[in-house]
């Protein structure tokens, strides 16, 4: 071979080597470096990610009665490009789904490809529609699996349970606060379709199973809730208040046993409810507590050892000028012991008790009782209440706050404060969630009682408790709150309604009663609040006369339900008929003149 030929061969070889090297590099670039990108693009053509929806967890009461669960439904949708006979489809679908045909026609002719025709269609209806579509050879209507939330008890416990939106996200009540646990985690599966749109099962790709939502067990006992709901309905019927709240709580553990508010709404017809009906007033409504707040002043003075239960306080014969303003009592009292101040609900006495501890210390006790901060219950939207620091107080605030004015509290805060007295002085965090379990019953989380702090000594709590027993006696302000067979401790409250425009609304009151039973070993603390109750006579609108009897009926039925042993000695001490209106009316008439004076100052017991 001559040199020229050899040179040409070498040149050809080099060219071929370069050419194949370029091809090789391109191949490596496409297959290795750009693999993921092109594999993704290829997969998009055929591979779909199918979402496997997790089932939302159920909500159950303390005895595993179902409060909220799911049932499968279907969403009927249309692909506008697949419709083969629009008129026939409109006629059939509107008839089967009970939709106005004009409305359906507008939807299908809107120009959009994906049209949701109707949500939450029962499975049986969907099945019937599917068969008729197939029989008539109508195409373009599809069915998507879905689930809807069902609340078997309707309006019962509606504010606590709450509800979900279209996307199955909780937006109120426990449904919202426990969303993280109830919602679960959707799974997925990568699948391939053939040209007919059917899944090619052997080509199933990566798959992750869904994790269904956990079950949330509440502390609510539906038996007790039923008692409370019946009594609050009876109260609404009898007194037609603007709003009403009843709470039952176990003082040792903070478990909420029952909670009812009015107005209410049916959870299954939530779209028809008005915003006013949806408010859980136990945690988001603020009220001036009235005389029930006197327990705080008395507890502060006793705990600081400024007074003893039998210390005598001069109550100025019913009228006391302090800071240039007159403070009235509803009756004329001269000297009262600390115990009697609570029993007879003396405003002046309570004010003087607060003065013994001073502004700052009294404020500290109010805070220690949990006022002015959220209780921490597992319910959304809870408010702090309204408590101003001492530097913002006026000169007379120290005399007004002890009788429950110039302060805003939620009904739950008041219940917790009373529970602090009942359980020996511990501020306990109220709880509505008992435990969280998996659908097969394995416990994920079990919430234990949380003692936030020791507010007062057990001795002080006992002394206050002794005084509160006197409130529910013939000499107290809430004889009608008594329960035959049991020793009750409690405190009434009557506060004139605050006018949003300033001052107080004339003739409108928030009446309340907070108490516990049995007084020695309390099984539950109860609070009854009625806002603007309408009584046959205005002078009957007192906590002891309106809220007290309601508490009595609730407590009596609850004691029976809980199988509490009646106290033999007083089994027949106070007959049930005592709760009737006539007797308190006579009591009020006898004391009417003094109470009229109290009304002018918006402070009644």
């Amino acid at each position, binding site marked *: 071979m001559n040199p020229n030929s050899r040179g040409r061969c070498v040149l050809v070889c080099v060219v071929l080597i370069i050419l194949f090297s370029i091809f090789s590099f391109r191949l490596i670039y496409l297959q290795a470096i750009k693999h993921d990108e092109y594999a993704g693009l290829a997969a998009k053509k055929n591979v779909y990610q199918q979402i496997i929806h997790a089932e939302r967890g159920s909500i159950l009461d303390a005895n595993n*009665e*179902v409060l909220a*669960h*799911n*049932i*499968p439904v279907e969403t009927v949708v249309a692909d506008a490009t697949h419709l083969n006979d629009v008129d026939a489809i409109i006629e059939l679908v509107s008839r089967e789904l009970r939709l106005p045909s004009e409305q359906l026609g507008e939807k299908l002719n809107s120009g959009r490809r994906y049209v949701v025709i109707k949500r939450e269609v029962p*499975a049986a209806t969907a099945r019937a529609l599917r068969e008729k579509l197939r029989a008539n050879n109508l195409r373009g209507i599809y069915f998507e*699996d879905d689930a809807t939330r*069902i609340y*078997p*008890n*309707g*309006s*019962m416990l509606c504010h606590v349970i709450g509800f979900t939106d279209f996307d199955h996200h909780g937006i109120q009540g426990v449904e919202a606060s426990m969303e993280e646990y109830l919602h679960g985690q959707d799974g997925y599966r990568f699948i391939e379709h053939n040209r007919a749109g059917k*899944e*090619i*099962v*052997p080509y199933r790709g990566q798959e992750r199973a869904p994790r269904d939502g956990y079950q949330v067990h509440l502390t609510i006992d*539906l038996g007790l809730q*039923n008692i409370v709901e019946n009594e609050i309905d009876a109260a609404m019927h009898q007194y037609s208040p603007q709003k009403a709240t009843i709470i039952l709580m176990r003082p040792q553990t903070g478990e909420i046993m029952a909670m009812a508010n009015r107005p209410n709404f049916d959870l299954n017809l939530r779209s028809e409810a008005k915003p006013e009906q949806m408010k859980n007033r136990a945690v988001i409504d603020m009220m001036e507590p009235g005389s029930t707040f006197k327990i705080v002043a008395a507890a502060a003075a006793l705990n600081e050892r400024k007074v003893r239960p039998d210390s005598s306080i001069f109550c100025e014969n019913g009228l006391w000028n302090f800071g240039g303003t007159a403070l009235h009592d509803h009756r004329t009292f001269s000297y009262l012991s600390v115990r009697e101040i609570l029993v007879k609900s003396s405003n002046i006495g309570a004010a003087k008790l607060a003065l013994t501890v001073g502004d700052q210390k009294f404020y500290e006790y109010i805070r220690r009782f949990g006022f002015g901060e959220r209780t921490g219950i597992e319910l959304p939207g809870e408010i702090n209440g309204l408590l101003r620091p001492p530097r913002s107080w006026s000169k007379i605030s120290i005399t007004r706050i002890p009788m429950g004015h110039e302060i805003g509290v939620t009904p739950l805060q008041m219940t917790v404060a009373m529970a602090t007295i009942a359980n020996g002085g511990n501020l306990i965090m109220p709880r509505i969630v008992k435990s969280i379990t998996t659908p097969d019953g394995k416990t994920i989380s079990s919430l234990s009682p949380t003692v936030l702090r020791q507010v007062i000594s057990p001795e002080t709590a006992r002394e206050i408790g002794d005084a509160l027993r006197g409130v529910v006696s013939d000499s107290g302000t809430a004889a009608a709150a008594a329960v035959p067979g049991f020793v009750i401790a409690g405190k009434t409250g009557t506060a004139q309604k605050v006018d949003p425009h300033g001052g107080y609304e004339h003739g409108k009151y928030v009446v309340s009663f907070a108490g516990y039973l049995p007084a020695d070993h309390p099984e539950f603390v109860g609070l009854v609040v009625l806002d603007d109750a309408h009584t046959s006579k205005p002078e009957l609108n007192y906590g002891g006369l309106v809220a007290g009897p309601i508490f009595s009926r609730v407590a009596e039925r609850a004691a029976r339900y809980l*199988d509490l*042993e009646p106290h033999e000695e007083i089994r027949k001490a106070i007959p049930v008929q005592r709760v009737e209106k006539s007797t308190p009316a006579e009591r009020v008439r006898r004391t009417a003149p003094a109470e009229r004076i109290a009304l002018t100052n918006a402070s009644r017991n």
Partner: protein
Amino acid sequence: MNRSRRRNCNAVNAASLARWIVMTAFLAVAGLSYVYLTLQLYHLGEHRKAIENELVTLRAQNDIASGQITALTSRSALQRRLKEGYLTMIPISEANIVRLTIPARSTDEDAIQPVANPSTTR
């Protein structure tokens, strides 16, 4: 004559032929098996899908039935039926109540305490 015929005749290599036949048959069987198994795979996939759908339907029916049972036995529903008169409630007489909560007793009482009412009162 015989010698030349023998020389021109191509001898059949039986072993080689057999080897080819076996190889071809093996390839044919393998190919057919592949096709058969692939079809089986698709068929079983369809079957699996059908069973999955059936399972989903059964689960849905079960959920619907559970929902209906829950709705019919809910406290609200029972109370409504009680009001309508479909149900009646008979109060349990004191004699038929067995109290498991033993009442407090004085120390001089016997150690053994009854936990149920006597049979005569039942």
